[in-house]
């Protein structure tokens, strides 16, 4: 950016070497100076939001209008809220992009690459006064024209915004004095001796034309250990997802917390193993006494692999709401081989029979079947997707997911899915019984389930 031209007005124009902003006529005391400071640091739109949320909170009803253009390499990030317009002339000199801030609840954003010029305008204000020039500071204005003499960035772009700003800053074509010289309203300016309390202001404001970036408060500083150029961290710390707040210790890498001895990890990722539910790799185990910090000793050789017979499959704990049957229920059913937490996958199991619906639909019982008005399957492994059978229920007596029929070994279990109207089991030579909601019941051949509204399910071919 090679300086700006502005036209006098009532709004606050904030100009720094890497960003330009327009703020309303009436703003919180000292706000424009804080905005100037954060933009001068290179904090861009995020920095503006920091200052504005600090002053106005997060409620949109009290949030002020703004327009901001932040330059990052050859990119310009634009955000506009309220009765303002940002007009962009692209590098080919012809295309005009206009970004308005009204008709949106929050703001509008756009990123343009290598623009030729960008103009910030207060809507409905005709700027008739002669444009004046400035390079940095705060002015009262109604329009700011940012002329980018050379759209080509001085330095090659990198992903890191912090490393990219300084080269172009020296190319200030407009020769003006310190910001004071071009400031019309001294009370709102970013002059260091005003006693403002701005983080980093001492360094930044002491010499506003010193273009060395200040990194102390940079947005990236909290995560430099993760994304900075220096990679001194160990593998396991690189795996750490940083927590959202700075004061919280590093969390652990994703590990299969419930897999216990069945965890199979590539040797490259050390995993701390704990019995039961807390196998988590942690760099520094500050999270709790439940974590083990001595990682190197716990590298799990991949040979550990298959779980012992007593280890349930890792996915089973989390799955199948309502899949559990009580011990008492099991005993009533006199089934010693059925394990509540061990649904048997369909693969390789001989079809255990079929069901015939009163609608004429049939389904082979090679896997779980869910019948209802609008049946859904919930939280199942991809290789165990149930059959979903929809049945008509004009009176909506039948629940969306009404009854689940599943195969466990050579047994068939039926379970009413906590329905409003229940499910009746009719067994030959026995009085009908209502299925216990949420509890599985063993099904015998020729049993009939009555879902209501004349919809029945008949079991056939069971061993």
């Amino acid at each position, binding site marked *: 950016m090679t300086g700006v031209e502005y036209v006098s007005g009532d709004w606050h124009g904030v100009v720094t070497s890497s960003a330009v902003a327009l703020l309303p006529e009436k703003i919180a005391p000292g706000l424009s100076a804080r905005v100037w400071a954060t933009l001068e640091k290179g904090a861009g739109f995020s920095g503006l939001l920091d200052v504005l*949320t600090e002053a106005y909170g997060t409620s949109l009803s009290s949030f002020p209008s703004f327009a901001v253009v932040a330059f990052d390499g050859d990119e310009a990030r634009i955000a506009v809220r309220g009765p303002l317009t940002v007009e962009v002339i692209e590098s080919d000199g012809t295309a005009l992009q206009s970004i308005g801030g009204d008709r949106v609840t929050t703001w509008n954003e756009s990123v343009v690459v290598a623009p030729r010029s960008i103009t910030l305008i207060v809507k409905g204000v005709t700027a008739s006064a002669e444009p004046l020039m400035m390079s940095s500071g705060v002015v009262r204005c109604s329009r700011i024209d940012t002329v980018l003499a050379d759209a080509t960035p001085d330095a090659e772009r990198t992903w890191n915004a912090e490393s990219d700003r300084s080269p172009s800053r020296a190319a200030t074509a407009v020769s003006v004095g310190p910001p004071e010289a071009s400031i019309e309203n001294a009370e709102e300016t970013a002059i260091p001796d005003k006693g403002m309390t701005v983080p980093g202001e001492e360094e930044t404001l002491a010499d506003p034309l010193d273009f060395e970036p200040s990194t102390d408060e940079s947005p990236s500083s909290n995560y430099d250990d993760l994304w900075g150029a220096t990679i001194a961290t160990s593998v396991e710390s690189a795996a750490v997802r940083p927590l959202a707040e700075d004061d919280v210790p590093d969390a652990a890498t994703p590990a299969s917390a419930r897999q216990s001895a069945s965890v199979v990890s590539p040797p490259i990722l050390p995993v701390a193993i704990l019995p039961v539910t807390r196998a988590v790799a942690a760099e520094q185990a500050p999270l709790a006494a439940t974590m083990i910090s001595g990682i190197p000793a716990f590298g799990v050789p991949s040979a550990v692999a298959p779980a012992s017979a007593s280890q349930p499959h890792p996915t089973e704990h989390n799955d199948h709401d309502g899949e559990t049957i009580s011990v008492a229920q099991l005993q009533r059913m006199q089934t010693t081989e059925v394990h509540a937490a061990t649904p048997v996958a369909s693969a390789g199991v001989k079809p255990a029979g079929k069901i015939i619906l009163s609608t004429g639909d049939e389904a082979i019982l090679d896997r779980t079947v869910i019948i209802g008005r609008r049946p859904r399957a919930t939280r199942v492994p*991809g290789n165990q997707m149930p059959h979903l059978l929809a049945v008509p229920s004009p009176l909506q007596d039948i629940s969306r997911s009404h009854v689940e029929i599943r195969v466990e070994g050579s047994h068939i279990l039926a379970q009413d899915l906590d329905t409003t109207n229940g499910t009746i089991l009719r067994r030959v030579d026995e009085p009908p019984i209502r299925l216990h909601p949420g509890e599985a019941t063993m099904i015998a051949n020729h049993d009939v389930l009555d879902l209501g509204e004349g919809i029945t399910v008949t079991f056939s071919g069971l061993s």
Partner: protein
Amino acid sequence: MSHDQAVPARIRLAWGASTDRGRRRTTNEDSFLADHPLFLVADGMGGHEAGEVASAAAISAFLPLVGNPTLSVDEVREALSAAKSTVFAIADALGSGAAGTTLTGVAVTEQGGSPYWIVINLGDSRTYMLADGVLEQVSVDHSLVQELIESGELEQSHAGVDPRRNVITRAIGAGNQGEADFWLIPANTGERILICSDGLTGELDDAAITMVLLEETGAQDAANRLVHEALLHGGRDNVTVLVVDVLGTATGESDPETAKTAVGDDYSDDTYPREQLLAGG
């Protein structure tokens, strides 16, 4: 239960997508795919660009499926399998076993001639459904905090501030072999699907999210607004939001029984009580 690939999708959708690196991060490790019939969000992890690469690679594995009217569960599973292979290869190439990503979202499918959603989840990104003004979290986080809640060791109300809330228990890559959870859910006219990374849910609670989804009628407006609100409320993480609206559905004419059942269901999901069946038995 197998869908017919040749049948055009019996569902009309509108969608919007928005993403932002947030106010504190220097990179955006989220990736997303928003095109019929797939709407996915991936939140990469691993640091030093590994996260960006991993999430983008996982999403890329699903690109060949874009343009199909509907997908089968098996097609989604195969793409997921490809995604896992790619991410593991990337982790090897980067020499970082930490490279990994979450994945969640929806794919259009059919069940018995009616439009359905396949919902998929690995990790702590989330898929929600808004129907009749009520927001339902469909996916269940693979997170330590979620497991503690389910085991009764942690109250839901404390989950948002628990220091362990960013520990996930399943992912694609990141040294993890966890399997994805699947759901099959009927797709109804007027419903709105929300798919997001935890940069949204870390900043806005369900009530705030619901309010925005109800206020912003356009899908893109809703996605933008949610990302902006997350920024306003701190923007501590990358935030990605997809909003998918079901504009219309039709059921298969070849299946009259199913077609009948769908009539009227779009706007009323209540089951009406009736007299006790047992009275007659």
